[in-house]
């Protein structure tokens, strides 16, 4: 019942001091909105990552070249033979997908572009498949016979309206865009070593373009509905690894090997075993990295958290300003109601009742400001989520915690003035005019 009185008085005080209350609401609201946004990013990022990993396989190990390693000519590096060795030593592994990619010159009629071509095995299709396939994917026959076939990746476009700011983003993969408007399925395209790749590999590289038959088109999911937390792979053309080696790279070198152990519990075992196996093959050189799901998740989460510190800091400063505003409002309210405190005390109110009265009023301010801020955050998240998929995940605790933080800040800043009000002597308060 006392709470009821306090709530009513609080609403009346807010109505009486509109400007002052608005300023406090505003700061509290900005703080709550920042927290809402941060929590949404954090939660959504984590959920998206988990969904992405579920899609790609939680029992996945990624073996990659260690970019920090200085080649001393001791190790052969990560090669196709490593993948073969892994398959031989661990035949029980579900997926062993080696991959090598490089820039290539692609031509079709008058169109010409530099594109990213990847040489893969059939297992590539078993990792994070999100595509709509037209035609067919590469087959074992293609791999065995070095067939001059390829599969093109076409961009998925946008499910919703393309966000305005993304229109400023001029960069677009030229080939993906071309494929979208020109059906190349069943057509022959010219692919050859690009100028830059040839320079790296030495001018002796054959820069001649070869005709490849487009046997399939992989349509990516819409950009605003792509379940891959890691975004697009960057590949634009997929071809059998053997073909890629023969006509483009000319070597066994790999960018990475993806392995699926079938069971996330077996990850530690395979991680150690693969590290040992590869280290022995690489003459003891640690020129590769074996990373599992948990490691990648932790590393990405820590990156997300670093980015969020700024948003949280802005929110905290806004809440601090809001808290000072609440303190100011509470002090002003108390000063204008000293006589009322005396009357209430004469009627039998205890100090605790007076304390509660003003704290409840301040927390009410925090609740209204926090709710407004949370609504603002929700609108911001709704807008940003058109492009930022991680913001499409929602949990009830996000608005609840945002409002609670605003209320807690209001409580902390109101407690001292309210405590002082409760310490007023009834007879002094009654005399106050």
């Amino acid at each position, binding site marked *: 019942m006392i709470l009821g009185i306090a709530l009513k008085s609080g609403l009346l005080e807010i109505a009486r001091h509109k400007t002052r209350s608005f300023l406090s609401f505003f700061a509290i609201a900005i703080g709550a909105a920042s927290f809402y946004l941060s929590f949404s990013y954090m939660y959504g990022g984590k959920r998206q990552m988990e969904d992405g990993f579920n899609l790609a396989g939680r029992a996945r190990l990624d073996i990659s070249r260690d970019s920090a390693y200085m080649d001393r000519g001791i190790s052969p590096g990560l090669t196709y033979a490593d993948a073969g060795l892994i398959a031989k030593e661990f035949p029980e592994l579900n997926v062993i997908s080696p991959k090598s990619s490089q820039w290539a010159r692609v031509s079709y009629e008058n169109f010409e572009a530099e594109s990213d071509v990847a040489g893969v095995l059939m297992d590539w299709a078993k990792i994070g498949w999100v595509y709509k396939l037209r035609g067919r994917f590469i087959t074992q026959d293609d791999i065995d016979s070095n067939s001059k076939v390829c599969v093109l990746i076409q961009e998925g476009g946008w499910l919703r309206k393309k966000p305005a700011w993304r229109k400023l983003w001029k960069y677009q993969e030229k080939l993906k865009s071309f494929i979208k408007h020109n059906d190349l399925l069943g057509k022959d395209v010219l692919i050859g070593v690009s100028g830059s790749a040839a320079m790296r590999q030495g001018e002796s590289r054959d820069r001649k373009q070869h005709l490849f038959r487009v046997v399939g088109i992989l349509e990516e999911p819409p950009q605003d509905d792509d379940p891959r937390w890691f975004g697009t792979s960057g590949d634009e053309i997929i071809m059998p690894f053997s073909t890629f080696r023969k006509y483009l790279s000319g070597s066994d070198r790999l960018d990475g090997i993806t392995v699926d152990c079938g069971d996330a519990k077996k990850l530690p075992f395979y991680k150690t075993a693969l590290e040992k196996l590869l280290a022995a093959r690489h003459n003891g050189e640690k020129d590769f990295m074996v990373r599992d799901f948990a490691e990648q998740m932790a590393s990405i989460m820590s990156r997300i958290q670093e980015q969020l510190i700024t948003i949280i800091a802005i929110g905290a400063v806004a809440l601090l300003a809001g808290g000072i505003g609440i303190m100011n409002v509470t002090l002003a309210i108390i000063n204008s109601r000293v006589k009322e405190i005396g009357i*209430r005390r004469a009627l*039998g109110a205890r*100090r605790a009742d007076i304390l509660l009265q003003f704290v409840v009023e301040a927390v009410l301010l925090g609740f209204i400001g926090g709710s407004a801020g949370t609504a603002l955050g929700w609108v911001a998240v709704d807008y940003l989520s058109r492009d930022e998929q991680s913001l499409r995940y929602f949990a009830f605790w996000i608005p609840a915690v945002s409002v609670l933080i605003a209320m807690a800040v209001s409580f902390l800043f109101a407690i001292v003035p309210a405590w002082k009000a409760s310490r007023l*002597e009834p007879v002094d308060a009654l005399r106050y005019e």
Partner: protein
Amino acid sequence: MIKLEGAVKIYGKGEAAFTALNEVSLEIKKGAFSAIVGPSGCGKSTMLNVLGLLDRLTHGKSFLDGHSVSGLADSRLSSLRLKKIGFVFQSFNLLPRLSAYENVCLPMRYGSVPAREMKKRAHQLLAQVGLEGREKSTPLELSGGQKQRVAVARALANRPELILADEPTGNLDSTSSKEILDLLMRLNSGGMTLVMVTHDMNLAALAGRIYKMKDGRIED
């Protein structure tokens, strides 16, 4: 009901010290109607504040229902005010934002009276003071006499044994003054102890016992 023994109340310290009550002793019996009279600044209001447990004595002892209240904690004093004492002030002291009904309910809310009982009692009290149908009116919408009647109803809300009235007719016209006085007299006739501070000797003459005060002392 209430007793003061050698009550001294000094405000301020050193040269600025002012003795509002100086060795005052009195005893007010249960059911009595007492008036405290005297010129401005003689200590009448201080006496009422001390009797109403709103202020503490500097020296001396005060008793309520035979129990010493001099050293009680603030929460205990609040509880005694809530249950045993009702105040009627010269300037009414109603909360302007609350309706007549809510003003009457306020002490009951602090006393945790159940909602149904509180509603019933508030309506009964407002009817008793002749304000039936004005429950929703705020103090701004009431006349001085009506405000004081709400204040009396509020003072009676927790069924106290003692009513302390500080110049209850001081801000009222003669008709309203008579109505309020009749109301207080009726309550006293019903057994309620009544202590009234006034400077009007005609009003004081209605009391069973008159305490004349001067310079913080009770004159014989």
